[in-house]
């Protein structure tokens, strides 16, 4: 019962999506029209940790919480890439994760999108040139959008996903 009293006291704590997060997002290619019409209101995301330090994961986990609440946009995480529409990739791709990342991409049905989260995913970040790193994410699988930051904030990640599916149209978004 204490639980329900606490629930009642806390109430709904979801914050509206801030517009400032969009400046960390870079679109690599135009959104496929079919993908936009299919994924506009419901998107299944499979998160892949390709050797990340887990800083980005900590921020991504915040997305499922009450404050950022990605579910209100119809986004949800799934366990299997077969169920997924989008891969959310973090980390400089380490040597051990290069093949699994490629296998995950191949296991995802079409149409699919890839969003690379964090500086490591974009250009290996602080780990660039390391003996354990195989390359950035776009050297392994094609990427549709980048979210910069080390780590990026949950708002920026959320903006990145929504821009990638064309849900939020930001005219000022950088194109790669």
């Amino acid at each position: 019962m204490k639980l329900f009293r606490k629930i009642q006291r806390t109430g709904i704590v979801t914050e509206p999506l801030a517009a400032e997060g969009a400046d960390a997002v870079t679109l690599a290619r135009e959104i496929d029209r079919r993908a936009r019409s299919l994924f506009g209101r419901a998107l299944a995301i499979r998160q892949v940790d390709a050797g990340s330090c887990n800083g980005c994961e900590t921020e991504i986990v915040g997305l499922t919480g009450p404050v950022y609440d990605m579910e209100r946009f119809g986004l949800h995480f799934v366990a299997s890439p077969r169920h997924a529409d989008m891969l959310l990739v973090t980390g400089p791709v380490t040597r051990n994760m290069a093949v699994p990342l490629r296998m995950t991409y191949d296991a995802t049905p079409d149409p699919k999108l890839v969003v690379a989260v964090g500086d490591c995913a974009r250009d290996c970040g602080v780990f660039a040139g390391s003996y354990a790193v195989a390359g950035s994410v776009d050297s392994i699988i094609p990427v549709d959008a980048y979210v910069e930051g080390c780590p990026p904030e949950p708002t920026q990640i959320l903006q990145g996903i929504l821009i990638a599916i064309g849900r939020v149209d930001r005219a000022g978004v950088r194109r790669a």
Partner: protein
Amino acid sequence: MRAILFIAGQTLLLAVLAPAVIGYVRFVKARLQGRRGAGVCQPYRELRKTFGKGMVIAESASWIFRAAPFAVIGATIAAASLVPVVSASQPADRAGDLFVLAALLMLGTFFLALGGLDPGTAFGGMGSSREMTVAALTEPTLAIAVLTLALTTGSTSLGVIAGSVLGTPAYAVGPGHALAFAAFLIAMIAETGRLPVDNPSTHLELTMIHEAMILEYSGPYLALIEWAAGIRLTLLMTLAANLFVPWGMATSLAAPAVAAGLVAILVKLGVLGLFLAVLETRVAKLRLFRVPELLALSFTLALLAAASSFFTR
């Protein structure tokens, strides 16, 4: 002819309502977690999206993998056609009773388990093994719950049971009815894979029961299986509501009575959905090897219900 149309209409109603029931439970859970959550209609959007997706099929899979979703939806719809939704005058009673319904649900589970074993993945086998175990252990509870209802109402046919309790409210008074309801609810939670037996939104494969079997499915196959799971939950909830708390149901096929019955079942589904959401917020998932203890508890409740029905006859 009218009877066939009525049966088709009821079945269609259950099929169409199923994603809304799932969405409603998720919505209430989201609000209880302090989030805005997606709307009640989100599962419809997810189904539409999933139907439109492409598929990737494992090369180790055979025709069983491709046939299983259709077998599952066929068995689930056949089971749904037996459920009295709006009226206790149930023409489908001529085709089957509660045992047939349980067997049809088991048939769906059978093919889903085969579909999980087919690609030859470890998690598929694990899900199949666990799901069949849980399904097998809920059978005695369902059988004794049927017996309890049959002892008081004199029949195992679903419409007749609902009509008897409706017509003789005295049947619902007494510990037997309430105990059987509790046992049925636990069996329902086990059969549909809800907390505390199985978490429908988990990502940890080693904790999955139902989800592990469908990890390999994609596209329309996945959509059919998810929809069938929703129909299964909706039909079991409708059964729980209409067998044990049938007031509001029509007793004939006349239009105004049926409309009233429709409103009644929507209200009852709302209440049961709320209960399910609150329960899932309150309890944690049971360890897999604790689930048989929970099922043994539901079996004991059912046996007590049957015993008390004997003595109050």
